[in-house]
């Protein structure tokens, strides 16, 4: 239970770090430490990158759906793997075989998706 306290402290520190990084240039600008010399290049989205083409909000290819679907299935598998992995040393062979059967059944679906060419990008 104490570990969640560490996660909480870590979260607070990371939020504080991000907020500091954002507020630092703003504060220095307000204190007139940073000079203000604007030019058009400075205000482009990617100053050193390529010129952007079109809108940023485009409709994505429908084929991403398969990857999202397979991700959700394996995400649910991880929910079962997590308590199993924590207690594997006490569950002995029976727990190992039970998880093997579980993973094998889901792998049938993975192999089916593979054979049907779902994972191939056409």
């Amino acid at each position, binding site marked *: *239970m104490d570990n*969640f*306290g560490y*996660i*909480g402290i870590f979260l607070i520190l990371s939020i504080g770090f991000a907020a500091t990084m954002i507020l630092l240039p703003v504060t220095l600008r307000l204190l007139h430490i940073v000079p203000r010399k604007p030019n058009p290049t400075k205000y482009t989205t990617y100053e050193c990158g390529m010129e952007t083409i079109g809108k940023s*909000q485009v*409709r*994505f290819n*429908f084929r*991403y*759906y*398969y990857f*999202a*679907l*397979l*991700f*959700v*299935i394996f*995400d*649910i*598998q*991880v*929910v*079962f793997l*997590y*308590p*199993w992995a*924590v*207690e594997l040393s*006490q*569950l002995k062979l*029976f*727990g190992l075989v*039970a*998880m093997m*059967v*579980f993973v094998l*059944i*889901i792998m*049938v*679906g*993975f192999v*089916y*998706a593979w054979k*049907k060419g*779902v994972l191939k990008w056409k």
Partner: protein
Amino acid sequence: MGMDIAFWILAVVSVASALAVVLTRDLFRAALFLVLCFFTVAGIYATLSADFLAGAQVLIYVGAIGVFIIFAIMLTRDSRQGSPSGRLRLPALFIGFLFLATMIFALVNTDWNVVAEVPTESTTSAIAHAIFSEDGFVLAFEIAAALMLAAIIGAIVLVRDK
């Protein structure tokens, strides 16, 4: 004391982000606020000593459902601005408040069984023993695998281009 502070931060952030989901016009930002709401609910589970539930909440809701909602928005054309509010706005508000009143009434009038001692045991190992030990729910666990297999194959068959 620390638990109280953590609970109040999480509660305020979760309610604020839930309101932001409803009030934000940009659909994508609303989805991101929904993910934040799921995350703070996971934190509330953690303060209630339900460590496995918190982990499952992060994996399933923040991971899978959050990704799926964002996918649904990205795959849909011109849905970023949300649907324009129609004539159902006032009835929806009324039903929402009715539901809230019912929930508050039920919460206040329920006789909650409160255990005096603090649960210290890790729930994850208890769940692991309940599922994977020899007198556990191994059959139900394997049937869940068969259900997930059916979900994979069914979804692929339904949307595969001919």
